[in-house]
């Protein structure tokens, strides 16, 4: 039995690696994806293009604008002369943020009256706008606090300044809020899903399409041996992909890996059970590679969107949150981020491991049963 499986595994590997085009497809697209995700996928907000309109021309107004200019979050790209300029700058997307200081700003400040500065934000990209607003708020409130202290020293020199409460941030696991640390490890889950499901379903459907499946079935090989022979190579491909992306992530993008590699290996192996199961299941319902291609898309795409890969699950509608509980990718992403960034082990990740194992067993068992039926 082992001999038969081994020869099938060998055949599959040969088929996979002999063709230069196939070798290329195995390595280059994953590399391109990691690199694009590493560089392009970012929710960070730096150098927001900012327009300013200073109608007060006072020391105070210049001080406030200087604080924006000094921040690496904002780049002042336009110094407007009229409110109409501001309107145009935002309409044309030349600026995302505009700061308008009306005449009389400094006077109001010195009197101790509230001196509002106007901040206009282009809300089209709601996420960028929200984060930029947070940074604007930080700069303005720091400025306000300094001014208030100045004022209280001048008006009531004998009294202590009013108390303030501040919030100190302690961002664990990702101290600079680096989006890359969030996305690049996650690419492991996406890529193994896409590649391994495609490889597995295509390998079997191709045999069916060109008619070699019948030839194999007349050999003494048993269905289970056939399935093992077909899945073991792609299991290895999945592990190799994981190692490749983890290597690029840690060495090129310098993403920390603080956990135990063995925990990641266990999680990956369990995840691959589900992925292989999905690939096999698709191969049992499709007769042609064309059908397999379409079915893969309709399975992989929702799995990707509902996994928490880029958009948090807790903000989704309840129905989709429920769907994500039967999505192996959502558990695997927790394992990946847990081992890469948090450095947690099995004592924390056991529920995810259990879920992955359960999903893997169910999917594989269903696919094996269906597969044997589809051969009869």
């Amino acid at each position, binding site marked *: 039995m082992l001999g038969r499986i081994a020869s099938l595994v060998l055949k599959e590997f040969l088929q996979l690696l002999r063709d230069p085009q196939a070798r290329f497809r195995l390595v280059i697209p994953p590399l391109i994806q990691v690199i*694009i*995700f590493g560089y*392009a*996928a*970012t*929710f960070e*907000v*730096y*150098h927001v293009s900012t327009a300013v309109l200073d109608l007060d021309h006072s020391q105070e107004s210049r001080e406030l604008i200087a604080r924006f200019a000094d921040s690496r979050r904002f780049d002042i790209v336009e110094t407007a002369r009229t409110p109409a300029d501001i309107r145009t700058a*935002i309409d044309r997307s030349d600026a995302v943020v505009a700061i308008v200081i009306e005449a009389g700003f400094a006077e109001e400040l010195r009197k101790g009256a*509230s*001196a509002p*500065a106007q*901040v206009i*934000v282009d*809300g*089209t*990209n*709601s*996420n960028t706008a*929200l*984060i930029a*607003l*947070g940074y604007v*708020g*930080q700069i303005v409130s720091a400025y*306000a606090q300094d001014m208030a202290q100045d*004022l*209280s020293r001048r008006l009531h020199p004998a009294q202590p*300044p*009013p*108390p*303030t*409460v*501040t*919030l*100190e*941030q*302690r*961002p*664990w*696991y*990702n101290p600079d*809020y680096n*989006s890359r*640390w*969030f996305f690049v490890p996650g690419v492991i889950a996406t890529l193994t899903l896409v590649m391994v499901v495609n490889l597995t379903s295509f390998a079997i459907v191709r045999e069916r399409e060109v008619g070699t499946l019948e030839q194999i079935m007349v050999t003494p090989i048993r269905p289970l041996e056939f399935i093992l022979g077909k899945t073991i190579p792609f299991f290895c491909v999945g592990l190799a992909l994981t190692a490749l992306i983890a290597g690029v992530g840690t060495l090129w993008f310098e993403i920390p890996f603080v956990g135990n590699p063995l925990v990641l290996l266990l999680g990956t192996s369990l995840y691959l059970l589900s992925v292989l199961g999905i690939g096999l299941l698709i191969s049992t319902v499709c007769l042609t590679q*064309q059908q397999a*291609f*379409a079915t893969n*898309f309709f399975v992989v*795409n*929702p799995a990707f*969107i*509902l996994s928490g890969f880029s*958009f*948090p699950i*807790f*903000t989704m509608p309840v129905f989709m949150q429920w769907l994500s509980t039967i999505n192996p990718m959502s558990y695997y992403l927790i394992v990946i981020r847990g081992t890469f960034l*948090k450095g947690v082990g099995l004592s924390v990740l056991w529920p995810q491991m259990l879920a992955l194992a359960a999903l893997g067993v169910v999917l594989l068992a269903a696919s094996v049963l269906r597969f044997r039926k589809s051969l009869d």
Partner: protein
Amino acid sequence: MNRRRVKAIAWKEIIQVWRDPRSLMVVLLMPLMQMALLGYGVNLDIKHVTICTFDREGSQESEALMKAFQASPYFDIVETEHDYDAVKRAIDRGRCKMAIVIPPDFSEDLAASNAASVQAILDATDDNTANIALGYAQSVVGSFSGTVQLSRTQSLGQEPPVAPAVAQYRVWFNEDLVSRDFIIPGVVALVLALVGSQLTSLTLSREWERGTMEVLVSTPVTRMELMAGKILPYFFIGLIDAALCLVIAVFWFEAPFRGTVATLFLTTSLYLIVVLGLGYFISASIRSQIGASQIALVATLLPTTLLSGFAFPIDQMPPIIQGITYLVPARYYFAILKAVFLKGSGLGDLIAPIALLALYAAIIGLLAARAFRKTLG
């Protein structure tokens, strides 16, 4: 160009799509699925962030601050911890995304008129959620600070303090900062790219695979006639899909639509020519249907989602990647859609992206027409 020949090819193509369940699935199911998945699944509006609290003092003041967090719609206090280990466990296991820790000398610091500080421990693995949650926490603490100051000065019989230079915020175009209003127009661009390139990627490769190419080559049809006949039916299918998506976007997801239908129609037509031409070009270059549709998927899905500004702002990318985004047609169409939907921009405001999209359409059309040679070699 002979109109009769173009019509004949277009008619044949329509019959073929109508009889092919897979193509019909792509035409109908793909747009609906993408709209539902992305419309509901992509939500960056962070609310109900699960947090835990660790009050090391238990004073009236610290409890007042906790109440302020409890009252905020952005936070759900799910756990109350009594030591640091418990805080660490809650964050390690992902039960809480943030922990608010109040130091033991909090009320003393306040009484002594010092700056009292509170700690926010964040699970920053998801940097975006953490960053937004931090912003909300800062505003909760900021308004708490104001309340403390107010009650202090009142008890001293002073004038209430003024908060100088308070910023007034005005958010334009997406006043409530709803992420769906900005995602949904992008989904239309994504759907059209996927469906359009998938459909035309099969047109020539199918002829090769079924062996009908020999017959086609022996007819008097020219390259331009062939391309026109092959693309025309899909252009109308694409317009129907676009209309379907837009109706769902506006009436189901209630995305604000402030522009004119005419602007949208013109730009959508241009974009359709680009994606259909791209699919046709792939089809002319690759002779198997499966290979052509795979390449069409790879060529559209990843660039359209990652490099068009759909999910990630282009101006935050490194210069080289920003350069690459100029090659992604969805970049222009997405900018147009956002402007038409949210800003209500007209043709005059959109000259630059429309011109670039038109240039793109011309180049792709030319490449696609030339890619097919009437030889069997």
